[in-house]
């Protein structure tokens, strides 16, 4: 509620503009995802709905692939997969990372040390390799891809939450809660969490941008989302394999350019949204940056 009044004040500023543009982009993708069946003229997973490598025209608006998939339908449906995975991955990472960070930060002691150790080792692993390993173990599919991606982000939520918790824990009002005799759980739930949670939307959106890229990378390498599921990273991967074999580039530019563009715009959308939120929710940070 308070956030909302603040938002209203800030919508006309630079960060406000960022939120508006970023939000519009993300909403647009969400719209595509919801209405994909209505918008896509063909089944995205059906072979040979058109001639192979057809240039974009009025029927095949984004052209077709070597196997005759309709790229427009695949791009639109790709939104579904992208957003689903991002949503699932972020939620899972958040549900695991935030509570762990809260308890670890507030309770301290050996629990904290063990949690930090585990999270730090996960964190220090190169992102994509970690995702590949998990995806390889779990196999393909949307949910498994989401899990693979989420593993990367758990440490981020954990770290941010824990750091925040460490500083909020020292606040006088937390001591006041102890003086009242509040239990640890109660203190975390009512005194720490509400004051830590402000930074979560920011990481959420910023991580979403990152997650798209990871998912694309994963699919590009042949893990996560597997053919014939419509996903941008997959299309780029197949196009790239085809192109390196046949050296027909740039004649079939659309096959890589359009899914690539879809990825880039969505990432920009999430990033703008995240940075805008960051500016508004963490004003001190913004001031010190200037």
């Amino acid at each position, binding site marked *: 509620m*308070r956030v909302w009044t603040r938002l209203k004040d800030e919508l006309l500023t630079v960060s406000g503009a960022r939120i508006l543009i970023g939000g519009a982009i993300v909403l647009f993708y969400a719209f595509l995802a919801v209405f994909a069946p209505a918008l896509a003229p063909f089944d995205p997973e059906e072979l040979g709905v058109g001639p192979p490598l057809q240039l974009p025209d009025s029927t095949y608006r984004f052209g077709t692939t070597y196997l005759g998939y309709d790229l427009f339908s695949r791009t639109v449906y790709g939104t579904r997969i992208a957003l689903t995975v991002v949503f699932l991955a972020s939620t899972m990472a958040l549900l695991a990372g935030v509570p762990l960070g809260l308890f670890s930060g507030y309770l301290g002691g050996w629990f904290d040390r063990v949690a930090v150790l585990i999270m730090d080792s996960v964190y220090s692993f190169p992102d994509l390799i970690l995702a590949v390993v998990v995806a390889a173990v779990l196999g393909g599919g949307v949910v498994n891809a989401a899990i693979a991606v989420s593993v990367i982000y758990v440490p981020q939520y954990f770290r941010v939450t824990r750091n925040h918790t460490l500083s909020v824990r020292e606040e*006088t*009002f937390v*001591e006041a809660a102890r003086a*009242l*005799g509040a*239990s640890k759980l109660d203190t975390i739930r009512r005194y720490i969490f509400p004051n830590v949670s402000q930074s979560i939307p920011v990481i959420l959106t910023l991580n979403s941008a990152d997650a798209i890229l990871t998912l694309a990378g994963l699919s590009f390498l042949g893990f996560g989302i597997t053919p014939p599921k419509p996903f941008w990273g997959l299309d780029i991967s197949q196009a790239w394999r085809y192109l390196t074999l046949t050296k027909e580039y740039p004649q079939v530019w659309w096959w890589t350019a359009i899914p690539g563009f879809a990825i880039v715009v969505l990432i920009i959308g999430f990033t703008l949204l995240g940075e805008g939120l960051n500016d508004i929710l963490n004003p001190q940070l913004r001031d010190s940056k200037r």
Partner: protein
Amino acid sequence: MTCGRTNAGRDQTVLRNQAVLWDESISRDKSVSRDKSVPRGDSVPRDKIVVRGLRKYFPVGGTLLDRILGTQPLVKAVDGVGFTIRDGEVFGLLGESGSGKTTVGRVVLGLEPATDGEVLYEGRPITSGLPRSLRRSLQIIFQDPHASLNPAMTIFQGIEHGLLIHSSLNRAERRERVYAIMEKVGLVPPEVLAHAYPSGLSGGQRQRAVIARAMILGPDFVVADEPVSMLDMSIRARILKLLLDLKDEFGLTYLFITHDLATAKLICSHVGVMYLGQLVEVGPARAIFEEPLHPYTRALIQAVPVPDPARARDKALPHGEIPDGIRPPSGCRFHPRCPEPMPECGWEPRDLQDLIDRRLLELAEAQGRTGPAGFDVRMVEDEANHSLMVANKPALLRLIDAERDRETPLGRAIESVEVGQRSVKVRFRKPVPIPDVSIGDRTVRCLRVARD
């Protein structure tokens, strides 16, 4: 205030009808009723809080290795403090910033474990933490009203939380009590203010909310840690009045922490003056303010600004500032700043270094220049021997001779000077222990007072 709060709020002279905020019937811990262990003497005020030999050391800084091995340097924030607060008293804890006042308050309330020593509440030891049933009897009001309210809770939720923890009241009853206490502390109209967030209140209102939060549990002992020092002067008086009114109405006992001596003089019945983790003077407020015995107490009282330009004057202030609590001065901790120290007060190598520093300053001032003026201040300290070695012999020897000739306390504390090949070894007298002297109902820790 001799009667105090009695069981179950039956004492109507103290608890007028409306004023009952808490009785045992609403407690969750029915098994533990208050005051059972101590039979109630009728008119003799009982000891509410007894503190004996309290110590609290905090580890600070140090390297990673230190931290792992547990050999970090320790700040002796509280180092052997003892006092008694009787039922109905307002006991003021005075002292400069960093003297350990807040730490005493927090340890007494069990918010921080003691390193050593003992705290008794109505005769019951509470050093190892407060039992849940006592939690609500001992409450605290913090210095900074902006920091002590949870920004994510409304005023209502903040005040109500204590009831949720300790009572089995239903929603309507809780609301009734919250509104009642809000009115009591002057947060009116409660219906409106209850749903505000702390950020929407002024400093004075926030402090009232903090007071309400503490009072709703019906405590009988309250630590007020500089409750007005962050407030505007005109609000200050109002909050002090409120605290006094609440005390009278509910028979509270206060530990009132402050560095504002004028406030302490006005509202405290007893005071303890702290310096660097130790109490240097304890006793009835009136006596101490009328005739302070300890040099530090005298200095503090002197330093209080007088709101009258006609009487503004230069004061004999103690020079320098409160030293570091990691390695407090030996002997009497106040000796480096004491206006009338004695040779036995604990002079040590560091003091000679300070003297050299000060002399350098004077020289620089006299000659209108800065920079090294004849001393090479490289020193090797030797704690165990109470001695120190300095390069640059002639200048140092001259300085030492001057001190000895003038028979300054420092000069007289120098036991021997060994002039070596390339250094001077100065040995100081071993410090004598500083005794606690009882004079009437006062205790003073000072060698000079002990001698007189």
